[in-house]
């Protein structure tokens, strides 16, 4: 579904991503793990078009997307739950969800989606008219995920969705990720909580200072001695 081939990304002079290649198959959950600053967020931003590759290419459903504008990429079916949530804090919860369905024209479908999101996150329903910026960290995270689901993406990029969530919710978020996945959405997941991520993923890539250093079956990596030492504690 998604093929990333030898991409290099720079922040000014900083070479953040070095020759990274990986792919995500239809219906898979693939996870990227790695220490702080390894470049995980950078990769997700590059896929959704907020950052540009210097060299290399990215193909989504066989179409090259590394020169496509971010808003077009969303229309092609990639949604992104960004790091740090980036909800619209001056808008209400409901308006945030509506923004998620910006490209959709069918009102009824939008309302159905909103109901579905409320089902998954009842807390959002309680706060439907609260300004998003005043919600707690965890509530905002739920909103960010809900918002991304609104566009019914084919591929969902998730950047540390469990960060700052209560343990009971972390469990739940991972359940929801699996649910979303089994409902047909492919998922590329970035996580610090490598244990959890590897336990729900099909395959995984390990990143170190902008390079892929290891890849394989998620369950195998979970058992890998080096990975355990470096990322699982």
């Amino acid at each position: 579904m998604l093929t990333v081939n030898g991409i290099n990304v720079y922040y000014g002079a900083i070479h953040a991503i070095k020759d990274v290649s990986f792919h995500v198959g239809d219906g898979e959950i693939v996870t990227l793990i790695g220490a702080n600053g390894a470049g995980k967020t950078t990769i997700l931003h590059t896929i959704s078009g907020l950052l540009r590759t210097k060299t290399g290419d990215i193909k989504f459903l066989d179409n090259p997307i590394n020169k496509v504008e971010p808003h077009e990429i969303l229309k092609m079916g990639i949604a992104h739950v960004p790091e740090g949530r980036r909800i619209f804090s001056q808008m209400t919860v409901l308006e945030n969800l509506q923004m998620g369905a910006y490209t959709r024209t069918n009102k009824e479908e939008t309302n159905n989606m909103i109901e579905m999101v409320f089902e998954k996150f009842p807390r959002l329903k309680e706060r439907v008219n609260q300004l998003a910026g005043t919600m707690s960290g965890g509530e905002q995270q739920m909103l960010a995920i809900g918002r991304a689901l609104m566009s019914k993406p084919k591929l969902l990029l998730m950047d540390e969705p469990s960060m700052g969530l209560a343990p009971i919710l972390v469990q739940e978020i991972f359940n929801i990720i699996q649910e979303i996945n089994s409902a047909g959405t492919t998922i590329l997941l970035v996580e610090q909580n490598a244990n959890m991520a590897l336990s729900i993923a099909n395959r995984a890539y390990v990143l170190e200072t902008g390079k892929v250093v290891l890849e394989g079956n998620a369950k195998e990596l979970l058992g890998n001695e080096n990975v355990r030492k470096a990322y699982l504690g």
Partner: protein
Amino acid sequence: MTFLQQLINGIHVGSIYALIALGYTMVYGIIKLINFAHGDIIMMGAYITFVSLIMLNVPAWMAIIIAILVCLISGILIERIAYKPLRNAPRISALITAIGVSLFLENLFFKIFGGNPRPFPVLINTTPISLGSLQISMVTLITIVISIFLMLALDLFVKKTKTGKAMRAVSEDQGAAQLMGINVNTTISITFAIGSTLAAIGGILYSTAYPQIDPFMGMMPGLKAFVAAVLGGIGIIPGAMLGGFIMGIAESFTKGYISSQLADAVVFGILILVLSLKPSGIFGKNVKEKV
């Protein structure tokens, strides 16, 4: 009677301020830039109408459309050339280029048309309607009606339409807005187009009321309108409107009952008072940053 007359005078000026303030507020709302060149779009609107009428001899409605189109396109171009490259730069840099653009437009028109004020042709029959000893000119009525209509339309547009919501999203977080599938460049261009259209209309109404145009005519109403926008709560459309009316009426009453010299001081004094009591303007939401 003088009282009512002064009030009507105030509402007239106020509705023009309000109309200009709307454009300020919209542009500020989306890219958080005090668009100093906005006042000069007013001047452009007036000059283009003047040129089309006098030199090209087109009918009035066409002159107005030409003026609006030219302003609209200029607004978009100005954003593309002078502001867009600075989107990720400190905001104050864009403020300085905005001042640069303002100086440029003023001096460009100065160069082309000279500093001599030009009489603005009569677009609206100016015979006043008399109600007793009260005089209301047609211009006043039309100005008030157009301003209020445009404000309501704009408010609905921003609140209800998708593009309107996209504007609010872009104003908060351009990156996140892109992730929602919003074309940020287009949205910003639309905002400038609307703002410039309002400025053009404002310019024409202004020049109809004060039928004389010169290259520097946009400065004062621009500044006052900006103050009006802040007074009402910048970024908030009804706020701009209310701010405009308050300024106009306060100005008119101060001139009429206290002293003309103090009009500016009173207007700015009201601004200071309002901001001291309500730091984000009359309709401004007082959002404290959550830490």
